[in-house]
């Protein structure tokens, strides 16, 4: 039997692979409506059985994409994202206290916090966040940091950001909520703020 709705889970819901959880939710509701029993947009195109199959395909896609862990595994299996690389060993020559070892993984999932290679700017953070399908609103909800500041961080609006001592905390919270290694992420971002030397370092 030919699939009524072909394609991967994202195509079934009609969204981008970088869609936020809210977007997944809205797309799902749109598809439910469209393939629903009372839909007038579809009834003359699909017969009752095809409509039912389309609905269950939508449901299947949604069940995976609504769950961050299942979605991550799916993304990896489809090659949308690379599997989270294991934490690299801290460099021996690093000054200061040796970074804490990674906390013992409580379960196979969630993936260990990622350490970003190279310079970290707002765009990098944003990309990481979007790859994981996390919205700024969610981070704001979890961290109690205003969306506006999170936007400033991502937009590199350094002049609008709070004093470095607060900013460091914001960055660590942001990183934690996004699945990034908090301290190193904050360090990497702060190191780019030339005009505002960080007195906490």
């Amino acid at each position, binding site marked *: 039997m030919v699939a009524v709705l072909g394609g991967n889970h994202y195509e079934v819901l*009609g*969204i981008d692979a970088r869609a936020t959880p809210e977007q997944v939710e809205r797309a799902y509701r749109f598809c439910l*409506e469209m393939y629903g029993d009372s839909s*007038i*947009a*579809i009834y*003359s*195109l*699909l017969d009752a059985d095809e409509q039912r199959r389309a609905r269950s395909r939508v449901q299947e896609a949604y069940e995976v994409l609504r769950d961050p862990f299942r979605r991550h595994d799916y993304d990896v299996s489809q090659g949308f994202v690379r599997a989270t690389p294991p934490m690299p060993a801290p460099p021996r020559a690093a000054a200061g206290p040796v970074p804490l070892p990674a906390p013992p993984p409580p379960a196979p999932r969630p993936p260990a916090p990622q350490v970003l290679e190279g310079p970290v700017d707002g765009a990098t953070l944003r990309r990481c966040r979007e790859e994981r399908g996390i919205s700024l609103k969610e981070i704001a909800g979890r961290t109690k940091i205003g969306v506006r500041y999170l936007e400033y961080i991502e937009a590199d609006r350094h002049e609008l950001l709070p004093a470095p001592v607060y900013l460091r905390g914001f960055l660590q919270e942001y990183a934690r909520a996004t699945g990034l290694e908090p301290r190193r992420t904050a360090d990497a971002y702060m190191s780019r703020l030339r005009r505002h030397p960080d007195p906490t370092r």
Partner: protein
Amino acid sequence: MMEALPAVVPVAAARPRRQVWSVGGGKGGIGKSLLTAALGFQLARLGRRVVLVDADLGGANLHTCLGLAGPALTLGDFICRRVERIEDVLVETGVSGLRLISGASDFLGAANIKYAQKVRVLNRIRSLEVDIILLDLGAGTSFNIIDFFLVSDVGILTVVPEPTSIENGYRFIKSALYRRLRAAAPSQAVRAIVDSALDQKNPLGIRTPLDLLAVVERADPAAVPLLRKEMGAFHPRFVINQVRDPADAAIGHQLVTACARHLGVKAAYAGYVPFDDTVWRCVRQRRLFASAVPDCPSAQKVRELARGLLQGESLALTW
């Protein structure tokens, strides 16, 4: 006398100066003529020189929508060669920039004009010195209607949020697309496949253009890219008329999504017009709502629609 052309042609000149737009929709009584009249009015208000053409040859009434009496000369007189020049059947509407070629209601055979006559009519209409030629197509999916739709630069498909209207809308899209594919078919075999697709109960099991492509793929794979190209260039624009609530308005997005997924047709959602008692009252008084009550919700939405269509914009589905 021709004026010397400027050395550098401005970029804007690249846009085709004269465009044919058509307003179709498979079903009767869904407000095509009123929408066409209002759209023409708003386009004229936006500074375009517009000619409305009542191409609903069997049931012309665009003049009534504009509050005009049936004119002495109509398209029928031109088709029957009672007048030689298309300009002779062009009438003023009282709105600056908006003129009308009335339909051929006096000529009962007009709905079945021959292909050669159709080509002559279209060519002469195209030669008019205007910016936009706006055709009001009749109901149904006859070749006359579809051919006018297919030659248009902008093909507008009107539906109301009712199952019958939407069903006819899809039927209109399929009929138009099949006619276009048939004309482009590179071989007799492919043409025969398109012909059998016109019968919804065809033995090949073709129900949609996507099924058709699959069958052609087996019969004549080399023809597929050509047909795909034709399908890609077919770009109907939906307008939902008589919208009563946000769910009605959202149907436009569903139609576009359904066309892409289940018909392989790249449609767009040009806009919607709310259900509005003012429109009904104006019809009763034989006045065009868009000019009689310019601030009513319907008039405003048609103005938005006109602007969007001029700029090639459509309502996007954003999550």
